[in-house]
């Protein structure tokens, strides 16, 4: 089945220790998104790629970086995690089309704990 996969599902890191979260998709979608979601809040978009074009949200901290080496994979790098970065990180994909719908398909998420 076509799907969005995130690894790891749970990540524990120490304060200030870099961490990388990964996302892969078999949907062949043009757009990949990274969201941060904290408890009882809506997902907050960090950035997204349309193919290789990177789009950063204005309020995304510089501590967060992303890479998309090919269509299938996208990575979220947190260079120096702080306690406030503990959250669920969601990856999503969509066709990125102006025709029809642009339904986003979400991966299972990575729960990040910062000690």
């Amino acid at each position, binding site marked *: 089945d076509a799907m969005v996969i995130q690894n790891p599902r749970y990540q524990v890191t120490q304060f200030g220790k870099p961490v990388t979260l990964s996302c892969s998709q078999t949907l062949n979608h043009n*757009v990949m998104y990274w969201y941060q979601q904290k408890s*009882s809040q*809506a997902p907050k978009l960090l950035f*997204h790629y349309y193919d290789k074009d990177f789009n950063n949200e204005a309020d995304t901290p510089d501590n967060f970086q992303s890479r998309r080496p090919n269509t299938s994979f996208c990575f979220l790098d947190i260079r120096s995690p702080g306690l406030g970065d503990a959250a669920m990180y969601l990856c999503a994909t969509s066709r990125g089309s*102006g*025709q029809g*719908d642009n339904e986003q398909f*979400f991966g*299972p998420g990575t729960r990040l704990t910062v000690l």
Partner: protein
Amino acid sequence: ELKVEQNPLFLSMQEGKNYTIYCNYSTTSDRLYWYRQDPGKSLESLFVLLSNGAVKQEGRLMASLDTKARLSTLHITAAVHDLSATYFCAVDRTSGTYKYIFGTGTRLKVLA
């Protein structure tokens, strides 16, 4: 700036009852989506609404879209405990960056 508001934020209801969740958005938008999220889980797509007057139904849930009023509703019929979850609406445009603007979410608790 496009804003999306949902109400209520919290909803506690008895099994068997009917209720409606409202999603208002501030400017013209082309497409509207409803998602469900269980505690500790990711988002699951429920409905995609693309045009004025669109209505979609799945089981006890029915979603509708009124683009003139900038309003979408998610109606719950004869609620059951399994519907307990947080429901989000989201809108996007057919041009530009295609990013979603999410509503605040409605946390639904169905009491047995």
